[in-house]
């Protein structure tokens, strides 16, 4: 079971700033473990950010995004209290959904 994300969403003037931390190993498939065996690729491939019920960002991700990914987005037309829902799905089919309210 994947660990929860941390989502911070705040209004700065009329712009909502959304910052997302994801817990994921983001294995490239090129790293070797201590025993010298290649660690198979394991990485987030797709993500979506939904605000107030509408999809605002869809992201596709490769192996060169850092371990425990961090993303920042901005949007107009949102307000305090709007619900932010973030999803991700990785190459093994693991997925995670978390939400936060804009503050």
């Amino acid at each position, binding site marked *: 079971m994947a660990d*929860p994300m941390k989502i911070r969403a705040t209004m700065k003037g009329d712009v909502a700033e959304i910052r997302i931390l994801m817990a994921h190993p983001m294995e490239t498939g090129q790293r070797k473990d201590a025993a010298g065996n290649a660690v198979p690729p394991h990485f987030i491939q797709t993500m979506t950010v939904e605000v107030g019920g509408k*999809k605002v960002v869809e992201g596709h991700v490769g192996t060169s*995004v*850092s371990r425990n*990914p*961090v993303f*920042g987005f901005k949007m107009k037309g*949102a307000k305090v209290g709007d619900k932010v*829902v973030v999803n991700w799905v990785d190459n093994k089919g693991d997925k995670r959904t978390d*939400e936060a309210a804009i503050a």
Partner: protein
Amino acid sequence: MNTTRRTVLKSATASGVLAGLIGTGALRPTQVLAAEWNKAAFEAKDTAGALKGMGAGAPSDSKDLILRVPDIAENGAVVPVDVVSNIPNTSSIWILVEKNPQPLSASFDFANGALPEVSARLKMGQTSLVKAIAKADGKFYTAQKEVKVTVGGCGG
């Protein structure tokens, strides 16, 4: 700061419930699902291949596409990258690291009020050009900057 920390949905069970809701269709699954991952573009071994996979052709340089990266990365494992597009009607942004084994790092599509900008953190195996590509009104634009990846630590 602390109040926003507490707004996070922490409990795994709560998200499990959410996943359940999505499963039953109670949460408009069409909006949550993403398009298929672009295997051809992400697995391309060079920039040209990635661009081809993206259907981006030959993008033109643009000063309205702002790429902010460090000149020297403190650590190649975590290189901060910000991309802001001031090109009207920008709908997508891609980020590539030219010398990575698979140059395409990420792509983002924006809709429903999202500003065409993103910050992310990338792995870089060596000193390389980082490229941002933006799509606006069906045309492709690019900006690029070199990031040096240094030796560090105790030489061990």
